[in-house]
C-alpha cells in the first residue's frame, strides 16, 4: 500500500524536528572537535545533566523550562571551562580526550542515576500539549521551539565566527595556534571561552531534550552514534553543518520509516556518513 501524502508530509516534518535536535546536540560537539581538537564525549552526558536540571527546576520549583537556562547555561559555561582547564593542565592529547571524556560521561551518568534514579522521568510542561494544525499536518510546539533554537544558535555562532574579531581569532587559533599567538591572540583564554560555550550549548540542548523526550540516564548513549555522524557529515568546526546534516539525516530516517521497514532507519545515518567519506575524503 502506498503511503498517504499526509503520512509523508508528517514524516518529513517529524524528520526535520528530529534533525534539529541532532543538530543542536551536535553543535557544541563540532565546535570542540573542530576548533579545540577535543573529541568531547562528555558533551552527551552534559546534555542529559542539563535535561535533568531542567526537569528538576521546572517540575519541583515550577520554573518555566526555558527560563531554567538562565541558571543552568552559565553554570555549564563554568563547568565547560573547568573541564578544558583540566584537559589542558594535563596536556591530554586529542585521541586521549575521547577516553578521558568517556570517563566523565560514566561519572555524570552515575551522578544522574544517584540523584534521579535509573527510572524514567518526564517533564510535564505547559508547552507539551500545544500544537498547531497546518492543513492535515500537526506542528507540536516543543519540537518547533527546538528547531527555532537550533537554527538561531547555529546562525548566531556562524555569524560570530565569520564576522567578529573573537570569531576570527578562534578560527585562526584552530588553524595555526602559534601564528595566531604571534598576532596577539590569547589562545588559552579563547579555548576556555569556547569550551564554556560548548558546555552552555549542551545545557540548551538538554532543555530542548527535556521538553520533548522522556529521560533515563542510560539514554545518554542512544544519541552518540547518530550525532557523531551528523557532526562528521556537517564538517568539523562548522556551526551550520550539524543542523543541515541533522535535518537531512532526520528526514531520510523518517521517510525510510514511512515507506519501508522502520528497522532500516538506523542504517541511514551511517550509510550517508560512509557515502560522504567515500565521495569527499578531504573533508576530514
Amino acid at each position, binding site marked *: 500500500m502506498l*503511503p*498517504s501524502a*499526509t*503520512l509523508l508530509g*508528517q*514524516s518529513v*516534518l*517529524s*524528520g526535520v*524536528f*528530529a534533525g534539529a535536535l541532532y543538530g543542536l546536540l551536535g553543535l557544541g560537539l563540532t565546535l570542540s572537535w573542530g576548533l579545540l581538537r577535543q573529541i568531547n564525549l562528555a558533551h552527551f552526558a552534559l546534555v542529559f545533566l542539563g535535561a535533568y536540571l531542567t526537569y528538576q527546576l521546572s517540575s519541583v520549583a515550577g520554573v518555566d523550562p526555558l527560563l531554567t537556562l538562565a541558571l543552568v547555561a552559565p553554570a555549564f559555561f563554568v563547568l565547560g571551562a573547568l573541564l578544558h582547564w583540566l584537559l589542558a593542565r594535563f596536556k591530554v592529547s586529542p585521541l586521549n580526550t575521547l577516553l578521558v571524556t568517556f570517563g566523565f560521561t560514566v561519572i555524570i551518568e*552515575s551522578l544522574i*542515576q544517584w540523584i534521579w*534514579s*535509573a*527510572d*524514567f522521568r*518526564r517533564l510535564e510542561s505547559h508547552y507539551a500539549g500545544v*500544537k498547531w494544525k497546518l492543513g492535515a499536518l*500537526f506542528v*507540536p510546539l516543543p519540537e518547533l521551539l527546538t528547531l527555532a533554537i537550533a537554527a538561531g544558535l547555529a546562525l548566531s555562532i556562524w555569524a560570530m565566527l565569520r564576522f567578529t574579531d573573537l570569531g576570527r581569532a578562534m578560527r585562526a587559533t584552530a588553524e595555526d595556534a602559534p601564528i595566531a599567538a604571534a598576532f596577539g591572540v590569547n589562545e588559552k583564554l579563547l579555548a576556555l571561552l569556547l569550551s564554556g560555550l560548548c558546555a552552555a550549548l549542551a545545557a540548551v540542548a538538554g532543555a530542548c531534550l527535556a521538553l520533548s523526550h*522522556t529521560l*533515563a*540516564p*542510560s539514554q545518554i548513549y*542512544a*544519541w552518540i552514534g*547518530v550525532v557523531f555522524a551528523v557532526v562528521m557529515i556537517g564538517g568539523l568546526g562548522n556551526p551550520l553543518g550539524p543542523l543541515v546534516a541533522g535535518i537531512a539525516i*532526520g528526514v531520510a*530516517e*523518517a*521517510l525510510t*520509516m*514511512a515507506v519501508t*521497514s*522502520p*528497522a532500516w*532507519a*538506523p542504517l541511514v545515518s551511517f550509510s550517508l556518513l560512509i557515502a560522504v567519506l567515500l565521495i569527499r575524503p578531504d573533508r576530514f
Partner: protein
Amino acid sequence: MRFAVLIAAAAASFAVHAQPAAPLRIGSTLSLTGPLGPTSAIHKVAGDIYIDEVNRRGGLLGRKVEWALKDDQSRPELARTLYEQLVTVDRVDLLNGPYGTASILSAMGVAQRYNKILLHNSFGTPSLARYDLQFPTSGGSGDPENVWPGLVFDALASAPRPPRTIAIVTSKFPSLHFISVGAREAAKKRGLAEVLYLEWEFGNRDFGPIAGRVKDATPDFVWVGATGLDGVLLLDAMKKIEYLPPMHFYMFPAPGPMKKLPEARNALAFTTFEEHPPFTANPRAAEFIQAFHERGAKAGLPDTAVDLQASIAYSTWQVLEAAVNGARSFDDKALAQWLRRNQVDTIMGRLRWEGPFNYVMGQDLYKVKQLQEGKWVVVWPKEFAAPGAKLIAP
C-alpha cells in the same frame, strides 16, 4: 587428670554445638544500574523484603539467610563474571537468577558449569533454556509465542464488538519479537485481518513515522511489541498527530510512566498480579503489598504498586523456600528433584515444572490488564478480573 580432660572435652563439644549455624548465602546479580535499572530496583526491594521476612521466621532449615547481591550493570557479560565469582570466590550456597533474558542466559551457563540450581523469573525465550537445573518462576509457559497472543485475543473476543483488523508493530528486542511474530500467526488463525506489520530496532528515537503509519492503516486493534519506554514514546508520537487507536496492547510497558499518560487510557498489557481481589485475598500477598509500599517508597521507586515485576520477584524467593523446606536440603540436585515433582503456591498462583526443561506448555499464570481511570486492573480471564471491572472497548 582424666576427669579434667573429660570435662574439657565436654565443654569443647558443647561450645561447638552451641555455635549458631553458618548463614545460608544466596548469590545473585541484578541490573542495579544501566538500562534495566528501573525494573531491577523493583526486584531488589522484593528480595530485601523476603530476606527480612524469612530471617524473622528463623531462616531456612534453621540457618539465617544472607543475600550476596552484585550489580551486573545491565551487562550480560558482566553477569557471567559475577556469577563465576559468586560460585568460586564468594562460595555462596545457592544461586538466584538475574533480571532479563540475556543476563539469565549468562548466569545459566555458569550454573551449568558448576551444577547449581538456577531459579529465574524474566527469561523471555524459553527455547534457549536447555539446562536441567534451571527453573522458571515467572509463571510463563514454555511456548509464550502461542499462549500470550491467545490470551490477548481471547480477551478481545469478549468485547461487545471484537476487533476485525489488527496492526502489529514491534521492537526487534529478541524476547519480544518472536512473540509478536506468534501474534501474527494467531491473528491469522482467528480471522483478524492484518492491516500493518512493522518492526523497529530497539533504541529507536523517532516514533513519529511509525505513529503515522498506524494512523493511516486505521486498525481496530494495535498490538505493540514493546518494553520499557518504547510504548510511551509511541503513544507520545500518536498524541502529536491526534490519533488514539480504538484498542491497544503493549507487551511489557514501563507501568509507572504509562499510568501517567492520559492517552494510554484503556491500554492493555500483561500481568501476573495486581493489587485487587482475588490476588489480595492471599494473606501473604496482602502482607507483601504493605511491605512493598513502605520499602518501595523508601527506596525511591516512582511507583510502589505491586504488579508483574514485584510479584515474579517475590514468588521466586517463595519457590526457593518451598524447595528447601520440601527437600529438607540445600543440595542443588535434591532441590531440583523436589521441584520437578511438586507444585508451589506463590502470591501470583501455583507454579509447576513438569514439562520439557521444567517448563509447562500451553498454559501459564499470565493475565490481561487494562488501564482504567489511571489504574491497572485485570480484565481477563474473568475469574481474575477486579471486582466490577470488565474490558472497556468501543
